């Protein structure tokens, strides 16, 4: 049975990479730059994120970091990617990096590369790989030529949001003739949907009772992309309405088992990546609050000397560390190739713990900043908003706790095992 190694698979060069990321972001993307991007509505090139920095990250091979070298990536693991995302979370970097990474991962998951369609088709919609003459979509994402994203949720699920499997996806794709797919349905909260050149869409393949993943180039006739006014100003999201959009059959990236595999992998990886990014953001809000507690004087001392300030900050720190352990374990589980179910369980736990801790930490951050914390000038509100956004991304705590409960407590084997857990003295040797 494959296990997570005691060292989580951590290598010295991971530390170097993290250090590099930290320095680069401290210089190019401190929180003040995030604020500037939010307030100006984007960078000088008309992008909602810092497109120059994004291209530099592409140049450093960060996009595609966890994709096999054979497919044009760096062949590094989920843990490495987590360490990078943690640094991005720390400064609340507004960037489509996560969305692109997930899209790249989804495309790389497909084992049978499809052939590209004819070049003279009116739209650019190479979604497969393997054609030497043209760079594949995956190549273009890794190369920074294509901002890609994934459509993870649908409005029909209400508070649950997440729609990645056949049972929950309502968007449908019907086959019209031999080589056309007709897409109908609606997706919401699509990360960077307004900026994306391509979106991967899970849909029910009609009359076939199975799931398919479809690569939709944007803009695209029959696809209405409406920017959402989201709670987190550092993230742009969009609502996508497919109103009979017609796509070539080759846009079908994966179906049936392949499609479910993409969904499962996207979920486990996506949750793990969000957990890592949120751990970084947690570190950010902790640092912000602890620093304020050292500098702000009241009653003649730094407020951090008061236990009513000190202890809540300590509780946040403890939460940060616990969340981080789970986030690293979830990434290490992917890298070690442990059982799929165990990967997913750890990913759910990591995401829930990180997001619950972050929401709490951001709230305490506001409170402990006092009157200043309540102003727009104080950076802490960016964390409050990111926390509200992050915990709703890829399914909220309620959704994941229920899935975990089913995995942990249900099923005959499981129940039987529980029933025979030995009684005897409860021993805690501290």
């Amino acid at each position: 049975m494959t296990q997570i190694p005691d060292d989580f698979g951590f290598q010295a060069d991971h530390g170097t990479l993290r250090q590099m990321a930290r320095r680069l972001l401290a210089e190019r993307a401190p929180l003040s730059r995030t604020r500037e991007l939010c307030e100006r509505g984007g960078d000088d090139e008309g992008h909602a994120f810092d497109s120059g920095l994004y291209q530099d990250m592409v140049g450093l091979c960060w996009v595609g970091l966890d994709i096999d070298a054979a497919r044009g990536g760096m062949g590094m693991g989920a843990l490495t990617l987590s360490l990078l995302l943690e640094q991005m979370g720390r400064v609340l970097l507004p960037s489509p990096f996560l969305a692109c990474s997930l899209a790249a991962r989804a495309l790389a998951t497909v084992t049978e590369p499809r052939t590209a369609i004819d070049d003279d088709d009116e739209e650019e919609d190479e979604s497969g790989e393997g054609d030497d003459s043209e760079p594949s979509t995956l190549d273009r994402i890794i190369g920074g030529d294509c901002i890609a994203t994934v459509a993870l949720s649908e409005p029909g699920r209400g508070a649950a949001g997440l729609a990645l499997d056949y049972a929950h996806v309502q968007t449908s794709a019907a086959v019209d003739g031999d080589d056309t797919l007709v897409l109908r349905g609606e997706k919401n909260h699509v990360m960077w949907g307004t900026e994306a050149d391509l979106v991967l869409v899970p849909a029910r393949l009609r009359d076939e009772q199975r799931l398919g993943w479809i690569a939709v180039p944007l803009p695209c006739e029959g696809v209405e992309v409406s920017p959402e006014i989201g709670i987190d100003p550092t993230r742009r999201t969009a609502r996508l309405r497919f109103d009979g959009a017609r796509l070539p059959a080759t846009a079908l990236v994966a179906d049936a088992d392949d499609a479910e595999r993409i969904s499962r992998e996207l979920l486990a990886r996506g949750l793990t990546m969000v957990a890592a990014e949120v751990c970084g953001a947690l570190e950010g809000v902790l640092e912000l609050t602890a620093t304020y507690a050292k500098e702000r004087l009241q009653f003649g001392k730094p407020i951090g000397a008061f236990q009513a300030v000190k202890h809540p900050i300590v509780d946040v720190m403890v939460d940060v560390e616990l969340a981080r352990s789970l986030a690293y374990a979830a990434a290490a589980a992917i890298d070690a190739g442990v059982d799929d179910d165990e990967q997913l369980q750890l990913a759910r736990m990591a995401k829930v713990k990180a997001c619950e801790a972050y929401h709490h930490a951001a709230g305490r951050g506001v409170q402990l900043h006092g009157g200043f914390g309540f102003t727009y000038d104080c950076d802490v509100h960016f964390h409050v908003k990111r926390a509200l956004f992050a915990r709703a991304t890829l399914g909220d705590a309620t959704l994941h706790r229920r899935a975990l409960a089913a995995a942990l407590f249900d099923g005959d084997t499981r129940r039987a095992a529980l029933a025979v857990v030995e009684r005897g003295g409860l021993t805690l040797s501290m």
Partner: protein
Amino acid sequence: MTQDRTEALREFRAELRAWLADNRPEAPSFRLPQSFLEVESDAQFEFLRDWQRRVYDAGYLGFDVPEKYGGQGVDNDKKRITVQEMVRARTPFLVNVIGLHWAGPTILMYGSEAQKQRMLAPLLRGDEIWCQGFSEPEHGSDLASLQTRARPSADGERYHVSGHKVWTTLAHVAKWMILLARTGSEGQGSPAAEKSSAAKYAGLSYFLFPMDAEGVTIQPLVKMTGEGGFNQVIFDEAPMPKDALLGKEGQGWQVAMTTLAFERGAADPAARERGAQLVALFERLASLAARIERDGAAVIDDAVAREKLVALRIEAEALRWSGVRAAVPGLCSERPMVLPLMSKLTISEFNQRVTDLAVELLGAEAQLWLEDAHAIDAAEWPRAYLNSYGFTIGGGTSEIQRNILGERVLGLAKSK
């Protein structure tokens, strides 16, 4: 209560109810603030001021102010009934909040006859809006250390104010400010004595400061929601007449503590109705849970959501009856002042828990913000959650409230 009185009150209630039915304003086209902490645009302000004027002109405001000062004569029953009926009719709030609840009662208690004659009627009618100048950037929780100074002029006819107040709600529309400033002479005595608690408190005085004075700069502050509504005020030798002083020189701390007690809802005859308001806030949350769905089922039918909702419902009921009990001394004998002193803490934290749970229940639906067409209830819940920190921080943070309760009520040693 006599039969006549009972009958009179019943008639009063009926008339008021009819009046409210006819006069309650329609929802405007623009977004109304959730509380006075968010009054931002002229349109919002004028809408709310107009409503206060109409209530006053109709004779339904000022039941805690004698007639000679422009009030309706003190009548706790009528005050309670008006609050009750307004909660019931869900009218907008009365915008001159600081005037009505803090400045007004303080002036009634400490003001000279001239001050009462001058200030109270325009305050009630909303013609003159009040703001509060207590907190300073460096002295939010540690109020007694504030540094704004009011220096008497050589001829003794006026004071000149220099300093910096912050988080002053409504300052941008206010005619008056209740201002706490240092009049004690500094530099005299040893530095140690200057720093001693007694000296700190004794050096403070309480003023009714005219906001249109020269040397006053008002800078709007933007809240975390992106909305305006509060400000910082910078005084540069701003003059005020000597009769701006309320009470005596050096009595400022005492007067300010009275104001803070009013702020914390002490001795409020309408406590029961305010309690009902908390239950109403809960009902709004329950209504949300009945309307939103998770995978096709109403959230209110979810066992876990119900458990959390009921826990808050119990808190609401406890707060509601605490408000009523506060007016029954025989049932408050263990520690008479605790209920009014704790209400600011408990109500602000309850409000935070309600709005926090709302956002939690919204799940994926919580991602949208004001102005998004698909946002549930126009995103008022995430907005209210963010705004809830205004209440747990403003007017003395929850942390300071707990110090006050521990020290003044339980007699525990000072934390400072």
